[in-house]
């Protein structure tokens, strides 16, 4: 019986022996042991070990150039990961400061829009369903008309947030202009002015820093009655 089986079994072991180079499984060898001779098996096992490339060697076994190559490839991977992390962080930071932060332009835009909608003088001028939008743009990708705004720091370290946008209701449309300042130590912006200008109508001031200044007395009038700077 064993003689009859020997030919097909040998052909199987030969084929699986080729495979054994890639699949170094002791299970296959254990399975084959009763049918095939052990010397051939050990030879195949050797082949499987020596075929390992430089990438799977230990650091101590590498030659000098291989060490250099591995350092370079690991370094390149590291640099790639670091660049990716930095870019991700930059995008998230940009997203936060420009969109979600309480002092971002969109949030001030939303606040001011809500104030306009709540103010009876404004609703009298503009009508109902007041919508707010920025400046027309030729950018085909922009779904929103961008809001014109700027944040600048003057020589005293005071940050000026200046913005204006259009509002439009059922009756009329107008422009809202706002100027907010933030002193160096403070974390919140303060209104310098905020008004709604409807063409042909008087300006509607929702905020005017001048009122506050005069309410406090002569302190903010400046030196020699002149307001030097802001």
């Amino acid at each position, binding site marked *: 019986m064993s003689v009859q089986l020997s030919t097909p079994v040998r052909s199987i072991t030969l084929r699986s022996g080729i495979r054994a180079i890639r699949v170094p499984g002791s299970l296959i060898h254990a399975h084959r042991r009763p049918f095939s001779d052990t010397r051939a098996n050990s030879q195949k096992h050797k082949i499987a070990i020596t075929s390992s490339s430089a990438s799977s060697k230990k650091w101590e076994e590498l030659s000098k150039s291989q060490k250099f190559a591995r350092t370079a490839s690991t370094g390149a991977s590291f640099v790639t990961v670091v660049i990716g992390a930095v870019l991700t962080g930059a995008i998230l930071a940009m997203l936060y400061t420009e969109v979600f932060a309480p002092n971002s332009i969109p949030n001030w835009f939303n606040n001011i829009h809500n104030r306009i909608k709540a103010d009876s003088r404004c609703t009298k001028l503009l009508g109902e369903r007041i919508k707010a939008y920025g400046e027309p743009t030729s950018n*085909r990708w922009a779904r929103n008309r961008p809001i014109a*705004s700027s944040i600048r720091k003057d020589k005293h370290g005071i940050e000026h947030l200046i913005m204006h946008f259009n509002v439009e209701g059922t009756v009329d449309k107008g422009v809202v202009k706002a100027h907010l300042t933030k002193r160096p130590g403070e974390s919140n912006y303060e209104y310098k002015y905020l008004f709604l200008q409807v063409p042909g109508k008087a300006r509607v001031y929702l905020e005017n820093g001048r009122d506050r200044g005069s309410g406090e007395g002569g302190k903010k009038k400046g030196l020699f009655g002149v307001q030097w700077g802001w």
Partner: protein
Amino acid sequence: MRQSNLVDHSRDPCPWVVLSDFGGAFAMGAVGGAIWHGVKGFKNSPSGERSIGALTSIKARAPVLGGNFGVWGGLFSSFDCAVKGVRQKEDPYNAIIAGFFTGGALAVRGGVKAARNSAIGCACLLAVIEGVGIGLNRVTAGGSRPQNPGLPSESSTEALPA
């Protein structure tokens, strides 16, 4: 609706922009799909039949990808218009909210959980796209951003009726 002296080159008004967005997204998907599946079909065909394989693959798959893109774009644009209509504001939150609804709507057949996950993922993706857009705007087109006419002088505000 717009300032009379300014010629507006911006996009179509709201109901119509959905149509143009759908078409644009379909075209983008079809062209991209033609390139992608052309290369894929070429690569996966036996030699001698590579060009015919690429063509077959393009014909079979590119319109499907275009359709998928178009559905996404049209749905997103519809939600964007709807959100604009409700909020009456034009700011980056529109895209994020619209992305949330788009992701949810596209995954709604997978159940509540799938819809929620897809909605959140899509909103995050659009938030990142908005962030990248703002960043690119900052870096490249600094001059073409809408600028404020500087500070009004003290004397001009003085003369205004307060």
